[in-house]
């Protein structure tokens, strides 16, 4: 008889597996990092200086779009990481995990930590470009930014887990991605600011959890500078995104408490 595995040891094992797999699939590196980078360069340069951003700022669109691209990298990485739930089910790996004496919460936690680690690494790579476009981040901003990125990543993976678990095909996931996740990002202040939008759009943006994620990133990048005027405050932003993640973590853990034949592929 072996000891009870506890919550963290299995989560660590699953997280470690996630990260190892990632570095053995080159196409995934390109997908999660390359696409947002390309968006950023093309859309950012395309709109160039024709963009009238936040009131009073002389920001180029390339710069305005930069924090949103960071969040898009997190979102894409989270989507790719949770895609693998569907693959694991078809490949059989998942049933091996489900037959183990592991608390179900630990299975969700393992996926969240693994996915968030990968998302975080890619976002940090992109941060290297910040100085190149004239964003000089205050040291305090840096210190807060890194855990903030990790927090947003965890919340997004928790969301991805929740959706991916109920789907038996990657096509189904594509639909959710296009109808829920991408619009969520578009209406988060990543793409355009809240101020100039129609009222109904502003309302959606106000209840969109990702709005708070993007705002938190802006607060860190422009620590102590006026560019964040009009955004939700940093504490509110952090609370918003953390609450969102916590709710989805609990919902996901609840969802996988009992499995059915369909969940096993």
């Amino acid at each position, binding site marked *: *008889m*072996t*000891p*009870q*595995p*506890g919550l963290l*040891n*299995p989560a*660590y*094992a*699953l997280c*470690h*597996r996630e990260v*190892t*797999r990632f570095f*053995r*699939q080159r196409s995934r590196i390109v997908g999660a990092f390359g696409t947002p980078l390309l968006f950023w360069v093309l859309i950012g340069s395309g709109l160039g200086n024709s963009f009238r951003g936040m009131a009073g700022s002389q920001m180029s669109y390339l710069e305005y779009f930069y924090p949103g691209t960071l969040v898009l990298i997190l979102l894409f990485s989270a989507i790719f990481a949770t895609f693998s739930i569907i693959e694991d089910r078809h*490949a*059989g*790996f*998942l*049933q*091996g*995990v*489900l*037959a*183990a*004496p*592991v608390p179900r919460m630990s299975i969700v936690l393992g996926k969240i930590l693994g996915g968030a680690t990968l998302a975080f690494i890619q976002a940090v790579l992109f941060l290297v470009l910040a100085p190149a476009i004239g964003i000089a981040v205050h040291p305090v901003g840096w210190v807060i930014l890194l855990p903030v990125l990790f927090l947003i990543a965890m919340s997004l993976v928790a969301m991805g887990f929740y959706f991916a678990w109920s789907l038996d095909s990657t096509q189904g996931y594509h639909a959710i991605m296009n109808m829920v996740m991408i619009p969520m990002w578009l209406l988060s202040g990543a793409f355009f600011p809240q101020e100039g939008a129609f009222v109904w759009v502003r309302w959606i943006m106000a209840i969109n959890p990702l709005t708070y994620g993007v705002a938190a990133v802006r607060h860190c990048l422009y620590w102590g500078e006026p560019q964040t005027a009009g955004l939700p405050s940093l504490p509110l932003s952090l609370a918003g995104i953390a609450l969102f993640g916590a709710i989805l973590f609990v919902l996901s853990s609840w969802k996988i408490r*009992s*499995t*059915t*034949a369909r*969940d*096993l592929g």
Partner: protein
Amino acid sequence: MDDDYPAVEITEVDHFYGERQALSGVTFDVRPGEIFGLLGPNGGGKTTLFRIVSTLFDASSGCIRVFGMDTKSQSDRVRQQMGVVFQSFSLDKLLTVEENLKCQGRLYGLSGSDLQERIVDRLKKVGLQDRLKDRVGTLSGGMQRRVEIAKGLLHEPRLLLMDEPSTGLDPGARIDLWRYLKKLQLEEGTTLFLTTHLMEEAEKCDRLGILSQGKLVGLGSPSELKNEIGGEVVTLGIQHREGVSETIASALSTEVHVHNGGLRFEIPQAKDRIDEILKLLPEEPESIHIGKATLEDVFIHRTGHRFWEEEEPPA
């Protein structure tokens, strides 16, 4: 300690997929230390029962206990006692053999040098110690199956569940597998509970349960089951069968089944009664075959149809 309990005790298990009933009133025990085979055609309910016993989902009704513990209310304790080898590989092909086993060990609460020693030990037992650093995807099907078994045995379970363990193995690898399973039973006292659709694999089990269309239609050792047939099996290849079945059935007081375009029945001392049989036929048969009962005959005897005739409902 709890050796008084059966290794697996299945009581009145029913399972439904929506409207379709996959298992119906299945009841039997697996005794500690034996190799028990669940024999049946694909679609007969084997995999459903396997998944329920392995705690992947609950039966619609009925009760399953593993060493006395309920699979529903004490699922984590059951999981600790049990190793599971799935038919579809549960190994991650992108990871090495060692990485797969490490991940598995941690899921079962193992870590550090204890885990490392177990990994090396189990791989030695399945003869793959030199493949520790190889990616699973580069191994042959037989080797992957052996890693899968090593994985299932990492936490020293008292019961090993295996779903169609010979799937995808060539004949040589099957012989090796069975040599290893017998050794495991003798040396470690592990109880083995496996499903199979292969008659020759079923022959090697200590006891068998025959599952057909969701019902248990036979239970016993392979020889007990075959002795039930009480005689030899005659298969006649004939063109014109009208009325012949009835004639044979009443003259030889046996049951006659039509299968593969021929007639099949069981009688004692068939070899000495060929003339008697031929006289009952309106024409000379194309072929006449007399054989000892096989497990397939047991299946036909119990269900009235051939093993492979069973309809395969969508999974």
